[in-house]
């Protein structure tokens, strides 16, 4: 008998996970469930590059540059690589852009689906674990050059602090206390953050810090885009606090980026850090 009624699988109680449900009933919709012929695909698909994040008392900031590259070509100048995962967390992606954006979409639905079915929000560690599982499912494609390396950060409602999680392509995750960077320009961004980060930054100072770090990444990594002054394209910046997440408006980021660029006109390598003693080390 053919019926128009909702399929029995939908009515079955059981999993609260959307990706588990997909893998049983519509596996073709999963971004990672493809078998590819041998060979590297690394240069065939656009890659997103640098993401940085840092915590401040009461929250955290995540920012990403806007460039996607394909080999030596700039594939896109205004790609967005930092997304809200839910109201209290955000996810940034480096790696194969097409796959990564799809993975973020799945992750967003995953969190919302759980919330609606269970009637409660997943813990921050629970969310970070789910993302691990999604990345691990992509390992086969990562080995053929289509790696996705995200960074996840959120406000922990139980502990009242911002927390940052970094990942590797096998889904291994580690928590970072103060700041973290991923992507091709991450080494340079991390160097900048090491010198500029303090634990007592305000929200606006923390946004400035991430813009500075992205500037340094773009300065030394050709795949990372700096502030585009002619086209007025600036990093995507998200701030998460106890009130939830919000994207800093383009105008506000532009104002900060203009200050950073003005500073670099005087000293192209950026602000000086003290030789022996940092700001908050007494």
């Amino acid at each position, binding site marked *: 008998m053919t*019926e128009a*009624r*909702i399929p029995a699988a*939908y*009515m079955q109680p059981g999993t609260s996970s959307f990706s588990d449900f997909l893998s049983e009933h519509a596996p073709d919709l999963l971004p990672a469930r493809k078998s590819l012929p041998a060979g590297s695909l690394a240069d065939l698909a656009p890659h997103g590059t640098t993401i940085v994040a840092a915590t401040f008392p009461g929250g955290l900031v995540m920012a990403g540059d806007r460039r996607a590259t394909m080999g030596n070509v700039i594939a896109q100048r205004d790609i967005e690589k930092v997304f809200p995962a839910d109201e209290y967390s955000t996810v940034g992606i480096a790696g194969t852009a097409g796959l990564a954006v799809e993975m973020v979409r799945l992750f967003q*639905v995953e969190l919302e*689906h759980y919330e609606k079915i269970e009637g409660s929000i997943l813990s921050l560690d629970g969310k970070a674990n789910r993302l691990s599982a999604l990345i691990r499912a992509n390992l086969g494609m990562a080995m053929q050059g289509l790696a996705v390396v995200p960074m996840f950060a959120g406000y922990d409602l139980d502990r009242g602090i911002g927390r940052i999680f970094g990942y590797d392509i096998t889904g291994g995750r580690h928590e970072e206390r103060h700041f973290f960077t991923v992507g091709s320009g991450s080494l340079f961004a991390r160097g900048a953050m090491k010198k500029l980060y303090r634990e007592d930054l305000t929200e606006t100072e923390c946004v400035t810090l991430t813009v500075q770090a992205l500037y340094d990444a773009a300065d030394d990594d050709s795949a990372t885009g700096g502030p585009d002054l002619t086209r007025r394209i600036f990093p995507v910046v998200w701030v998460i606090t106890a009130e939830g997440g919000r994207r800093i408006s383009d105008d506000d980021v532009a104002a900060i980026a203009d200050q950073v660029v003005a500073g670099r006109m005087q000293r192209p390598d950026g602000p000086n850090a003290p030789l022996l003693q940092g700001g908050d080390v007494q």
Partner: protein
Amino acid sequence: MSMPFYVSPEQLMKDRADFARKGIARGRSLVAVQYADGVLFVTENPSQALHKVSEIYDRIAFAAVGRYNEFENLRIAGVRLADMRGYSYDRRDVTGRGLANAYAQTLGTIFSSGGEKPYEVEIFVAEVGDDSADDQIYRLTYEGRVGDEHGYAVMGGDAETVTSYLEEHYTEGASLDAALAVAVAALGHATEGGQTTDRVIPVGDLEVAVLDRSRSQPRKFARILPARLDALLGERGPSEPAPAESTSSTDDADSTDDDGDAPIAPPL
């Protein structure tokens, strides 16, 4: 070998309908009211954990009365359908009408199939649009009938009395607190032998949720918790909990035990 009795199809359907209707009327009423910023749902439900009103998608909510386990299955199916469609197409492609159709087909098939017990549920699927002219409330009955409701709608319990109260007192485009006051008063309104009584329902026994188009987030569904409810309702005089004999407002597990009317197997 026993011969089955002949039962006319008319009688068979009538018996099944009576069975479902009786189960639905046993619980408490649920009201959906359109107000200036969207759709408001109010019901009397002392349980804080077992909800009768919940979120399906960005602009879509689900409300049900009847057997909890049955409408909970339908709710989960709705969330999965909506998330699946939104993920494989786009968030804007998830509509209340599509969902109402899927529920109607499901309830209709179950009701007319001989082998399954008819669902003892009635459902509202509501969707908010960009302005109140685009708001939709669909009513789905146990036999899979779909109706389009305007202004206000009531299901479960003594729906007729509550509807007649709303008929008199409902105003279009009311603010949230005005709409809430009317809806709560309607639920407390009862008729017994020509006598009308008005009960003030305690705040803790109310389950209230809105689809509020003025919310800045894409997800327009929000529960109104007792603290905010208290402020919205203002001073209403001494409250009085529901009469004890019918407090099983989540309706189910125990209702077959304490109510001799409910058959364990469906009338076939």
